[in-house]
């Protein structure tokens, strides 16, 4: 099992220059947050509020213009550090590789011997229920299965921090629910820290320990809601009266920000 980690964002801000030098867009402003090791943290916010930018900064894919981000005490600044795995919204499975080779992709060239790679890939395929599809190409799989391939490809790297950028956005409602439970199982069994960006209030309320609500652009956290669900949670949560309270509270905050983002 991977050891847990903690993430600290301190006064993070970022500005994107507009093409052609005509001004700039401030995406993030004064984002400060601490995520405890082993925590499941969800981020919600209106469209264009900088959620994905924040995740890119957390992943080391983008250096923050202002402020500081640390993971396990070490600063992240534009380079993906060891121990961080990212699952993207878009299908990132490689169509020219089999499912097995997709999952093994990140392990090759890391000096691991073949038996170690085979063991890790086999375990990840087993965990994600993809063992019988190991020789298939992604084009032969459904959207949900392709996203599971991407999660398995991240899982084999044994990250201590999973970053997920709306990973289920393109999936139907039933598949989203099932994938949500898969994600909970993965979080419980690996002990990793999970940061999930989502547009779905229900998804955030069902999966996360805490939910950060972001303001309209420039994005910053305007409220953090703790769900206080037990670690061993199930679909029973959906019928719990507190589930309704959490989603109502989230919507209350998000509604005003969404209207502001729409210019109303």
């Amino acid at each position, binding site marked *: 099992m991977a050891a847990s980690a903690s993430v600290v964002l301190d006064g993070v801000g970022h500005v994107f220059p507009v093409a052609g030098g005509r001004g700039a867009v401030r995406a993030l402003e004064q984002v400060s947050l601490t995520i405890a090791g082993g925590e499941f943290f969800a981020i919600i916010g209106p469209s264009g509020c900088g959620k994905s930018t924040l995740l890119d900064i957390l992943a080391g*894919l983008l250096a923050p213009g202002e402020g500081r981000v640390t993971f396990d005490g070490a600063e992240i600044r534009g380079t993906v550090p060891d121990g961080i795995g990212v699952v*993207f919204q878009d299908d990132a499975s490689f169509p*020219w590789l089999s499912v097995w080779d997709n999952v093994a992709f990140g392990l090759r060239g890391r000096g691991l011997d073949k038996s170690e790679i085979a063991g890790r890939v086999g375990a990840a395929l087993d965990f994600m229920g993809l063992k019988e599809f190991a020789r298939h190409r992604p084009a032969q799989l459904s959207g949900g299965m392709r996203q599971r391939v991407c999660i398995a490809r991240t899982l084999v790297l044994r990250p201590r921090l999973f970053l997920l950028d709306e990973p289920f956005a393109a999936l139907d409602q039933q598949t989203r629910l099932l994938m949500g439970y898969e994600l909970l199982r993965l979080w419980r069994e690996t002990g990793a820290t999970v940061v999930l960006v989502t547009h779905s209030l229900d998804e955030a309320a069902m999966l996360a320990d805490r939910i950060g609500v972001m303001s309209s652009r420039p994005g910053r956290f305007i409220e953090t809601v703790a769900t206080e669900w037990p670690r061993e949670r199930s679909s029973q949560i959906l019928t719990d009266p507190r589930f309704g309270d959490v989603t109502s509270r989230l919507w209350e905050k998000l509604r005003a920000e969404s209207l502001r983002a729409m210019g109303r």
Partner: protein
Amino acid sequence: MIRARWIQLGTAVVAVGALELICRLGWVRPTTLVPLSAMVQAAIAAAQDPDTLADFGLTLSTVAIVVAIAAVLGVVGGVALHAVPRWRRAAEPFIATYYALPLFALYPLLVVVLGVGTTPIIATGVLYAMMSVAMATLAGLDRIPAVYRKAARVNRLGRVATVTRILVPACAPDIAGGIALSVSYAFVAVIASEFLLASHGIGHAIADAYETFQTQRMYGLMLGLGVCVVAINLGMARVRAHLTTGAA
């Protein structure tokens, strides 16, 4: 699907039958066109002639060299132009008008520079063939989803590994399409060069048969060449279909 196959087969049978009939009935002169059965006979005879086989071998090997060089230069050129937008902007007008240039007119110059023999033929072929690979590589690289580049960084791939493990495989169907096109350009350039100035090769053999009024042999050689080109293109199409199915 089955109906389309029957229509294709029926059209081919009617065309072949009409060709055979108009030649056998004497509606066209035998010095102009020979029946298909006579072309097949001549092609079989040519296939048993060691000199003609050597000519075929020389032409096919020249085309293979041209395609190999064009593929390498085209892929490297495409990747380089994609990597340096400034070079691409500078090269764009040239790329857009490349095939409008009378490249074959450079053949005498290439003979002067490279001497007589296979080398100027290869150079002419490469000039014709490489741009299709470069353009296909550029188009393929343009279509690569941005998330693949992010995946490369998350997997901490270096520049070279990103190109070899992600970018090139991702645009392999496009590159294969460009190479398939380069095969056609290579055949056109090599056969035309042999036809005009070479002393060996199937282009030269066809020209020789034409000039010595061996009409049946000329058509037999053309038929043999046509079968070769069609077989190579079908093979390329299968490779491309395999890559495209995987990348769909």
